[in-house]
């Protein structure tokens, strides 16, 4: 046992009941206060689109939208999300028989291979289109740079974002 584990063992397990809104539905659960938001979403809510690559904020695969803003769910505690609104990529497939235009665009452009980064990429894509930050390839590349993709080489993701932006044009593309 390492020193830190020794110290840690001295503190009792502490839980809290939290209520938050996840993918448009109110959820209430009792969680250990040290549970990360990513683990809560994956293990307590079964939202396994939240992918854990590094668990220290670097890879971006655990990115979710917190009150509409992209954040690393591995770098938040679940208790910190109480009272907030969370979207994971599952929120886009409310209609199980149809793809969301962003998903369609990723399929059409082959914006994914293994799919590990894809939920995060799709959410970030949604955010940047809403923010009107998908104007040029360079801008898209810059805006998605917080999420690592080991497969695609990014070009097809950039194409997918541009395609999605056109599909959503007017409706979601911002100023």
């Amino acid at each position, binding site marked *: 046992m390492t020193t830190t584990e020794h110290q840690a063992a001295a503190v009792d397990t502490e839980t809290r009941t939290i209520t938050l809104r996840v*993918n448009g539905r109110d959820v209430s659960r009792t969680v250990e206060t040290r549970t*990360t938001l990513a683990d809560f979403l994956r293990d307590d809510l079964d*939202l396994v689109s939240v992918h854990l690559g590094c668990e220290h904020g670097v890879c971006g695969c655990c990115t979710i939208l917190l009150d509409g803003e992209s954040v*690393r769910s591995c770098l*938040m505690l679940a208790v910190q999300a109480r009272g907030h609104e969370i979207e994971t990529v599952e929120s886009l497939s409310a209609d199980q028989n149809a793809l969301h235009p962003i998903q369609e665009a990723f399929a059409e452009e082959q914006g994914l291979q293994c799919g590990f980064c894809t939920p995060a990429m799709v959410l970030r894509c949604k955010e940047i289109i809403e923010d009107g930050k998908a104007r040029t390839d360079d801008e898209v590349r810059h805006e998605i740079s*917080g999420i690592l993709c080991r497969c695609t080489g990014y070009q097809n993701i950039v194409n997918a974002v541009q395609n999605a932006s056109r599909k959503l044009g007017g409706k979601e593309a911002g100023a």
Partner: protein
Amino acid sequence: MVATTTVRDSRVPGAPSPTTHDRLVVYRTTIGQAMKPPRFQYRDPDTLADAVALKARHGSDALILAGGQSLMPMLNMRLAAPSVVIDINGVTDLQQITRNGDVVEIGAGVRQSALETDPLIREALPLLARAVPHIGHIENRHRGTVGGSLAHADASAELPCTAVVSDAVVVLQGQNGRREVPASSFFDGFMTNACADDELVVAVRYPVTPAGAGTAFVEVARRNGDFALAAAGVIAEVDGDGRFTRLAVGVAGVASVPLRATDVEQELLGRPVDPATIEAAAKRVEAAVTTGDDIHATSAYRKHLAATVVSRAVLAAATDARNGGNR
């Protein structure tokens, strides 16, 4: 992304069947090595007074949780094991940006991303608006705070560098009240600061950048969002004859703390804005580079980069000044 799962958990829309989850939990428990925070007591005060009281009670056993972009990785990797975590995200008093005459006070809890878009910051502290986009990625800046970045005191970090260049003052509060520490003495060693065990960073005060002054922030990092190998922040004022009348040059990533390149400042003051003169003067910063060889760069390469970023930033700030700066 085509959903093939047919059995769905009714609790949350879109959730797949629980069997996947069951397998994962078994797997995670079996390997027993997952990166997870150790146990701690979680406290989430609503007021600054409560936060200060908690910090006073627990001292060095407690760590403040602000944006979590540095602390959460340390907890996940178990490099930190505080017995108490004091989450200050609910302390709204710390989330204000206010201007009092020639000073802008930024609360410790202000998110880094807010500095990129806040009209007051863009107008009064253009150097911050230029520097902040270099901090990690937007997903980090949506959570990361101003106070957290200062307290974390990474020598490669952008905000501490801007504080040193701007002669900013860090405001600390402990059980015995408030005190103000100039940025130049706040960062007092490798990832350490002047904040006592019973104190919190509550705000930072930046002098408003004078009308007409030019600013620039130039950084070299391996990849978009990485910590700087070297970065320079500059505030410059230039007179009608094109000579430097004021120059503040800060460098990050080259020593245990963010530095002022005073040799460069002194050499250029009163001299004309001229690329060759600036490039020659910038070489003086090399003597201040003390970071040794590491996995990111050799010391020799860092020296080269330090001179390069200083040279580019001074020229860019002078050009910005000649174009009227932010106003």
